[in-house]
């Protein structure tokens, strides 16, 4: 608990559009993640989770509030060294991969941009780490399955050996055994390198397994923050948090009807 804050976010606000289509996607969000910690972000679809992560990794300059990473205020735009320290795995790997770049080019490019040598070894090594063999090295994104693309996206984030990793639904496209391999890999990296992570996921079991603490978001705000022990024991403080826990148990026709009534009130 004495570790210094690695990520500090204070009253972050981000909006899109004007007039009738104005939306406050992130509406005063504050949280702190200490070095080496993994912080979970869960919540409604469309509540602003990806928007928070994109701002943290410098991809959305139009925010207000305070963000500091490793004690330094986030610059707009951030310098090149920042991008080496903070990497993000995007929610839909297809959209974030260049369709005409092979796996090899996708992984070699960040190394070239940051002037890092020994590229061949690093590419082979990171492919091995994410469980894609050398056979995939010269494939294009459309020649990979959904889960294989996701592993490529994770490999691309890892190849720069960042200190902060922002993970947006990193395993939702993976079968549960590959998911286990990736989560174990992240656990190892966290231990070996003191990696700090924010993990966005709709899967509360994944969050419970990986995180120390988590925040529950709804419509641009954090409505509840709790530690995983509380999550495991079902001690949620808000109705929405409790609903998430209940719905995590699987599909139930009667419960579904109850949820519909609630949102229609």
């Amino acid at each position: 608990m004495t570790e210094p804050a690695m990520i500090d976010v204070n009253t972050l606000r981000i909006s899109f559009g004007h007039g009738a289509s104005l939306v406050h996607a992130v509406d005063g969000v504050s949280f702190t993640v200490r070095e080496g910690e993994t912080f979970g972000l869960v919540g409604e679809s469309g509540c602003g989770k990806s928007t928070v992560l994109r701002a943290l990794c410098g991809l959305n300059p139009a925010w207000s509030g305070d963000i500091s990473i490793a004690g330094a205020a986030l610059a707009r735009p951030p310098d090149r060294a920042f991008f080496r320290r903070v990497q993000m795995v995007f929610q839909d790997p297809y959209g974030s991969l260049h369709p005409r770049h092979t796996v090899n080019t996708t992984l070699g490019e960040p190394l070239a941009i940051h002037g890092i040598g020994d590229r061949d070894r690093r590419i082979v090594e990171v492919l091995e780490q994410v469980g894609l063999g050398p056979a995939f090295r010269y494939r294009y994104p459309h020649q990979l399955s959904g889960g294989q693309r996701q592993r490529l996206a994770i490999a691309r984030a890892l190849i720069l050996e960042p200190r902060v990793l922002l993970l947006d639904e990193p395993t939702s496209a993976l079968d549960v055994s590959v998911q286990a391999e990736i989560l174990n890999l992240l656990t190892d990296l966290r231990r070996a390198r003191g990696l700090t992570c924010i993990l966005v996921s709709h899967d509360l079991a994944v969050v419970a397994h990986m995180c120390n603490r988590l925040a529950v978001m709804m419509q641009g705000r954090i409505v509840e923050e709790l530690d995983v022990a509380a999550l495991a024991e079902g001690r949620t403080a808000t109705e929405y948090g409790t609903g998430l826990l209940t719905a995590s148990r699987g599909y139930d026709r009667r419960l579904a009807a109850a949820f519909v009534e609630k949102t229609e009130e």
Partner: protein
Amino acid sequence: MSDPQLIVDDLHVRFRTPQRIVHAVRGVSFTVGREKVGIVGESGSGKSTVGRAILRLTAPNATVSARRMAFQSVDLAGASENAMLKVRGRRIGMIMQDPRYALDPVMRVGEQIGEALDGRGLSGAERRARVLAMLEAVRIRNPQRVYDLYPHEVSGGMGQRIMIAMMLLPEPDLMIADEPTSALDVTVRMQVLAILDELVTNRGLGLIFISHDLNLVASFCDRVLIMYAGRIVEECRAEDLAAAQHPYTRGLLASLPRIDARRERLSVLQRDPAWLND
């Protein structure tokens, strides 16, 4: 099991790549009636490829063959491209795994969904009203705003619901849903699944539900097919999934994280080469 609507018998799909031929689907046979059939299995085992092959939407480097592939009275293997156009989207819908990629990036999402109503002689206003009603049905909070957004302006879960809305509008008889709810929070997911569930029960929709979420498939579907390396290695009633026998399926179940039982490491699967042949 109700009478089969879809029959797939000994389906094979091979991809040509510069290095070698990838035999992605290796003799898959199953039927689907007016029921919910789950497909789970290894990433890369050919689940999406099976879905695309049914609609003949596989990539140009693919070769598809089957002893028989039929939907109601349509011979899917032999039908002309023209005949397939009447099937695709209208009688068989497919919710693609990467919705934001599957959508046209330069067209507003509302207009794209509306295209599913082409050829019905609806006025512009009627069409818009139908689309807005469908967006509301899939629990989009502000349908008016979302109607005018471009695909890159919607969140992951909104993209999935847009895709679902688009596929439901033409009221198909069979829906192939490829990871349709992986980006939805679990409360919205429950509500969207209830829509599909209702269509199966009341309108006799047949549903192929491809998913990595074992708990979800076990609680939502009627039957489950488990795929490994291009084959169906096991089939069971959904409620019996936890008692599945194949070592691959057992391995999957063992690697699930749990909310209430934290472990240092998750167990991973030791793949056995023998699974490729049995």
